Structures are given as C-alpha cells and as structure tokens.
C-alpha cells in the first residue's frame, strides 16, 4: 500500500491513536488544508478582514472564496472546496437557528464552537473522514470584532491574525513582523486590509492579478461586505499593499515568490 511505512498502519483510521499519541488521519487532513489556495484573516480594533486567493486560470472563471454566513459574519476556507461548502451551509443554518430562538445575531465564537463540534465528530468515528479544510470566521458581535479559526481536527482558536493554505508560512511571517510594530487596540480596519493584502501578495506567485484576490470585511456597526481587489475603492489599498510587500521582502532579504505551485484540483 502507498503510505509512509513508519506509521505502521496507524494512519489508516481516525479511531486509532499512533503509539506516540497522534491521530495521523487528522494530520493528513491538515495537509489537505495547506494544499488549498491561501486564506488570511486580520482582526482590527474596529472590524475584521478576511482575504483569499480565488482559483482561476485561462479556463476557469474566478471562483468564490469568501462566503457570507450572516449579516455580521463572513468566512473563508482553504482545502477541499466540497468540504468547505458544506461547513458554510452548516454555519449559515446555525446562524439562522440562533436568530430564530434568541432574536439576536449569533455570537461568532459560539458559532465557531458549533462548527468545531461538527468537525470534531468526524475525527472520532470509524468510517468517517475528517474535513479536508480549515475555516476562518470573521465578524463583529456584542463582544466586538472576532476572528476565529476552526481546524480540521475540531479545535477552535481566536486569532489576531493568521493564514491557512498554500504558502501560509510566508504570509504569517509577514503578519508577525508587521503586528510587532502595531498597537492592536488602535489598528484601523483600513490598515488591517492593507496588511492582509500584503501578506496575500507575498504568499502568491508574481503574476497574481487583483481580480484573483477576494476580500470580505466588516466594520463595527456595519454589515459584512465582499469585494475583489480590482474594484475602484480597493485598488489604492492594493497598490499600497504591493509596495509594503516588496519593502518587507527586501528588508527580510527574501526573494519574491518562485513560480509554480502545489495547489491541486478541487482545492480552494
């Protein structure tokens, strides 16, 4: 069978721990997530921004990457798009059920926990396959702006900023460096968008077109909106991000992204 010998069969099911305490199928699921196109989230003091690289080439029209869950929440995922879409539809349903019962928009952390519980059940039963994608939720609720990451293993984390998907390491390096110089309690949504765009540009091949970047953001007190980077009002932010990205790359002494990618069919 085609699999790494060192796992001695422990990677064949989610109901078996390996002797060193890992559920290896879940780690494979995480790998599937990292093969999808990149998704980025940044939380500002007065809002949240989500970004993603849309799948497109000469034959594929640009596909959706950011999904609205409710008026005040959006999401972006990396990995198997079929798995991700299921999570999006589940999240949308849960958000509406919450509205029905409590007459109030759903808490984002609570929604994240709900999705995490669903994903977790798929790591505990024989015959089930973990979700091959990770999901980032961003929105503003009664407690303020929230950025939540849900892992294929069913763990939920609150983020300041972060990335998943192909080349996320480089994006996260940039976010870490930039956030060091920023006062988080004063970070404006506009700066957060530029920061996210720069991280996405850095993690993408050089011929990235603005139309390939989809971003969704919400400002406190307003609704979640989805846009692409080639739009009039986003273009200046995109240009600003581009210069910031190249400045950082020069300072960090890193070459710009090499061509060619490992992203695969069916991955978003």
């Amino acid at each position, binding site marked *: 069978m085609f699999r790494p010998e060192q796992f001695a069969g422990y990677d064949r099911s989610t109901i078996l721990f390996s002797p060193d305490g890992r559920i290896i199928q879940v780690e494979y699921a995480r790998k599937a997530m990292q093969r999808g196109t990149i998704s980025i989230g940044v939380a500002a003091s007065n809002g949240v921004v989500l970004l993603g690289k849309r799948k497109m080439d000469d034959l594929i029209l640009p596909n959706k990457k950011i999904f609205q869950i409710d008026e005040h929440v959006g999401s972006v995922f990396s990995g198997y798009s079929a798995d991700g879409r299921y999570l999006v539809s589940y999240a949308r349903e849960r958000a509406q059920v919450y509205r*029905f*019962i*409590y*007459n*109030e928009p759903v*808490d984002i*952390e*609570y929604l994240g*926990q709900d999705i995490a519980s669903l994903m977790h059940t798929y790591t505990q039963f024989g015959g089930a396959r973990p979700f091959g994608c990770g999901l980032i939720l961003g929105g503003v609720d*009664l*407690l303020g702006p929230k950025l939540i990451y849900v892992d294929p293993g069913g763990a939920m984390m609150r983020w300041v900023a972060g990335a998943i998907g192909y080349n996320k390491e480089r994006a996260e390096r940039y976010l870490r460096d930039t956030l060091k110089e920023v006062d988080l309690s004063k970070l404006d949504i506009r700066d957060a968008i530029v920061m996210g765009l720069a991280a996405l540009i850095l993690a993408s091949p050089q011929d990235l077109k603005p139309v390939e970047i989809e971003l969704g953001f919400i400002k406190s007190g307003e609704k979640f909106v989805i846009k692409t980077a080639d739009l009039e009002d986003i273009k200046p932010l995109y240009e600003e991000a581009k210069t910031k990205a190249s400045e950082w790359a020069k300072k960090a002494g890193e070459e710009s992204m090499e061509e060619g990618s490992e992203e695969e069919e069916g991955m978003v």
Partner: protein
Amino acid sequence: MINSGRDHALKGTTTVGVVFKDGVVIAADKRASAGTFIASKMAKKVHPITDKIVFTISGLVADAQVLIKWIQNYVRRISLERERPPLVKEVASLTSVLLHNNFRSLLPFMVHFIIGGIDQFGPHIYFLDHVGSIHEGKYMSTGSGSPVAYGVLESGYHQDLDEKAAISLALRALRSAIKRDAATGDGIDLVVIKDEGYRFFKPKEIEEYLKDLDKVISEG
C-alpha cells in the same frame, strides 16, 4: 384552547413591572388560589434567571415552575458557551419559542410572564402571554388583578420616574389589586434590578414604603 389558557392565566395573582431611568422594579403578591380556596399564602412568584434578569409568573403554578426551570437551564448553558450574559430580549425570545412550540404541539403552558431586567442596552420589561406573543413596555401587569393594577399604572407612570417613584408606583398598583381582587393578597415581593444586579426588598423596607403610601392616600 386559547381562551382556556387565558382564563387560567387570569384566575389569580397580580404582578407588576415598571421601568425607570436606570433600572426595573418588579412586584408580585404572594397568594396562590385554587378556586375560592387559598392554597398558599407565601407563594414565590418572582424568579431570578440571571443576576440581572427576573421573571414573574402567573397562571398554572406547575406549568410556570417547570418552564422557569427550563429557562434557567437554557440560560445557564448558553451563558457559559457564549461567555457573556444574555440580553433581556434574548431571554424573552427564547421563552416565546418554548411557549409557542408547546401551544402548537401539546397543551399550551397556561402562564403569563413579565420578564424584567437590565443589559448593555438599558432596562427592559417584556410581557409574554401563554401562546408566546411578546410585548415590550415601560410598565406591565399580569394576573387577575391586572385590570386594577393597570388603572393605577396608566395614571401614575411618566417618562422620568426615579427609583423611589417607580417603587411606590408599582406598590400602589399592587396594593389596589390586593384591595379589589379576591385572588390577590397575602403580602408583597418586591425586587429592584439595577446595574449591580437584582435585590429582593426585606418586608420591613416594603412596610416603610407602604406607610408613606398610606399618608399619600389619606392626605389626598
């Protein structure tokens, strides 16, 4: 069935809720009646759900007590999961869903509620009937004595009541109901909810207020 629910809910009791500038006053009598028989002279009709949200019940006592337990249950769980206390509006909506589900499928809960509380959007009072409809208001009353109480509330309420004025208005409304409604009586429970949480008044404190009221009435 709708009417039988209303009849049951109106067979005894008077409860009153009044909103003032920075809080809510809730008052209820203590008589539980079964026809002309007084089943209890110390019935508990004011039930805290969180430290800032309080229910009053009227109607079928068993239904009300069970429903209060359900709601306490839901609210405790949801507060832990969301890591924030619920809004008054959320608790009202939840209660409405529970009431209406039972109205549509089984027998309705034969209860009327006043939900009073304070949250980040200020003080609120809601009235819920046995079928689940929600009405928000500045002052509300339930039970068989509510027509009497409403008479006092209607004439006495104004926009800028302070805490003391709101308390005496609620007590005056309840006292009128005690005097003119046979199924209302046996003392008063009084609760004030402010930012720091709810507080049940001691009998002595209530007596103080009632003494003042007597003066008002005799002088008037």
